């Protein structure tokens, strides 16, 4: 029995053009991104998500301009025929087509409410002095589509806390934040540096607003603790986020109305397009819970827009071990699938400090 566990996510994204591919191609995720780096790790969930698309399903009305196709094609096409293989210690442990992910139907996520959460399997203990800092990054909008009221997308970050002394058993620490929308032609997740104007994969300094617009700060977290003389620690039970993308969706419709058949096209969630990071700033291992800048959809396993598989038994990984992921993509068979497959995968679970 370990004294405590801390949330951890190992994640990576692969990106590939498919317009010139005539045979199935195997894409390998960076193994170092799935190497256990600070403490033994137990993975409870595997998430798969299409990253940085404008549409989950796209039905164009007229031939779109080229920049539109570079990043804004059909996310479901990227997933529905790809095959994912998970390997551990030279052994394939899982192999499936993502849309057939076991457990993918545990509740239907609805982008109209745009809320995702992680119900912790173990209560995350925080003392009165501990603090957790969470931050949503900047939304890079390659087509310069922004909400009319400015480049600020409303969002909320929140933790539920089990509190036995409170008459209703639960309190909530929450912070309203904003996701700034950048007009930079550089997309947040340009992992293969495809855009001619891009300067490579963005650093955390470029992914997150330096003034902290998207930050649920440690100070704010600490200030919202329940005051009780007899209670020096609490259990966090849920981590949730909401990204309010109503205006973004409306603007998308306005600006691309001539290009896209909106009656049948489904805009993709901003959870696939906005980076996130989190860490203990006092207490815990004082490290980020995952490599900074993960797309938000890859860190909310309980309920969110990613496809998810819950392991029947947690996958135990020792310090230094790594997991291999391969994605086999078929050749493009039409314009919608052309140009880009960009898929993210994450292992979501808990670090176990002190375990071998």
């Amino acid at each position, binding site marked *: 029995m370990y004294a405590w566990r801390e949330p951890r996510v190992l994640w990576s994204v692969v990106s590939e053009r498919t317009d010139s591919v005539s045979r199935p191609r195997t894409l390998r995720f960076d193994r170092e991104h799935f190497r256990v780096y600070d403490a033994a790790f137990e993975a409870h969930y595997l998430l798969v998500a299409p990253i940085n698309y404008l549409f989950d399903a796209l039905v164009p009305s007229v031939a779109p301009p080229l920049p539109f196709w570079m990043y804004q094609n059909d996310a479901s096409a990227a997933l529905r025929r790809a095959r994912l293989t998970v390997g551990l210690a030279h052994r394939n442990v899982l192999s499936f087509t993502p849309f057939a992910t076991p457990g993918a139907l*545990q*509740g*239907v*996520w*609805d982008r*109209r*409410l*745009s*809320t995702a*959460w992680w119900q912790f399997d173990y209560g995350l203990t925080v003392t009165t002095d501990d603090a957790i800092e969470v931050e949503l990054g900047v939304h890079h909008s390659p087509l310069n589509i922004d909400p009319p009221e400015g480049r600020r997308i*409303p969002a*909320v970050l*929140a933790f*539920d806390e*089990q509190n*036995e002394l409170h*008459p*209703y*058993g*639960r*309190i*909530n*620490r*929450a912070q*309203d934040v904003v996701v700034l929308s950048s007009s930079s032609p550089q997309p947040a997740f340009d992992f293969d540096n495809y855009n001619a104007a891009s300067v490579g994969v963005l650093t955390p300094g470029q992914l997150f607003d330096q003034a902290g617009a998207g930050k649920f700060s440690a100070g704010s977290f600490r200030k*919202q603790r329940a005051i009780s003389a007899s209670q020096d620690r609490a259990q966090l039970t*849920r981590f*949730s986020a*909401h990204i*309010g993308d*109503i205006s973004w*969706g409306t603007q998308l419709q306005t600006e691309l109305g001539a290009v896209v058949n909106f009656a049948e096209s489904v805009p993709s969630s901003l959870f696939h397009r906005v980076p996130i990071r989190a860490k203990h700033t006092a207490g815990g291992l004082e490290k980020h819970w995952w490599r900074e800048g993960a797309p938000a959809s890859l860190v909310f396993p309980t*309920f969110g827009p990613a496809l998810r598989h819950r392991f029947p038994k947690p996958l135990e990984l020792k310090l230094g071990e790594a997991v291999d992921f391969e994605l086999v993509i078929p050749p493009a068979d039409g314009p919608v699938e052309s140009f880009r497959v960009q898929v993210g995968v994450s292992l979501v679970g808990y670090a176990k400090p002190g375990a071998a």
Partner: protein
Amino acid sequence: MTVIVPPKTADSVAFSEPRVYFGFVPLRPNEITTHDSEVFLLGEKHPVVFTRFLFHFRANEEGAIPPIERLQNVRVRIHASGQEYTSREFLSLAIWQNQPNMTASPVSSSSVSMHFDRPVYLNRRDQLFVEAQFEPGFLTELPRTVDALFHGFGVETNRPYYIGDSLTISDLTPASILCRNDGVESVMIVSLSITVGPRVPSYTTGGAAHLLRAQVKGLVNGTQQIWFKGPVDPTLNDRCPLPLLGVCVGPAIVHELDRTPRGLRSGAVGGVRMQPGENFRFEVYTEDSTLDGFDLGISAFGYLEVV
């Protein structure tokens, strides 16, 4: 003032019956609004254990209803017996959601379903009475078929039972659906589904749960009281809008209360136990001018504990 009463054990509960308290809060941009003070006040003789809150827009008299995504722009703060529940801040309704209840949209837009953590005992020959009435303003949407179906199992054979009926409603007067246990054994009812079908006979429009209000009561069993209690309305008489009943399936936002048993303040199924005379108060705030003139519907779902 909260009255402290001796703790009741699960054994002291003679029986439970589902209860939904519901009300409406007018939405006015940049203004804090709340409901009538009587609405979420427990006026029964027995305590009620609440397990969930539901939130959804109410259709106005012209039959219009805001798009569901506008719920993101509504903020809510909840007081229970004078104390804030979870947070003293107004939080977006989207972040209150902590229980998935949506299915594929053709289903969740036309059907609601509620599961009873505490089953309802239905004797042989006993009846549950479902009353359905369409909202004013939707006469042109009629006629439509309404189905009500209780699901359960026999107490002796454990075989499944489906007790319900359907009828086509073509006007705004209340219609009754009698669900009678005609079997040879008593049945433990564990869930209820109500579905509003497309317009008949053309079937040109989809199902729409938000068009209907419903009420349930046992004719012989239980307290013989109505299950859903709302503000007094001379025309709609305590019938609850269907979206506010969609605990397991439906279009509403569902917030599940803490389910850890905590002595006085919770029941055997967790939740929050409220004593007679206690109340909830929901305060609502929005800056969205497109919601001006609409109401937010709120319901509190739980179980009456007859002790």
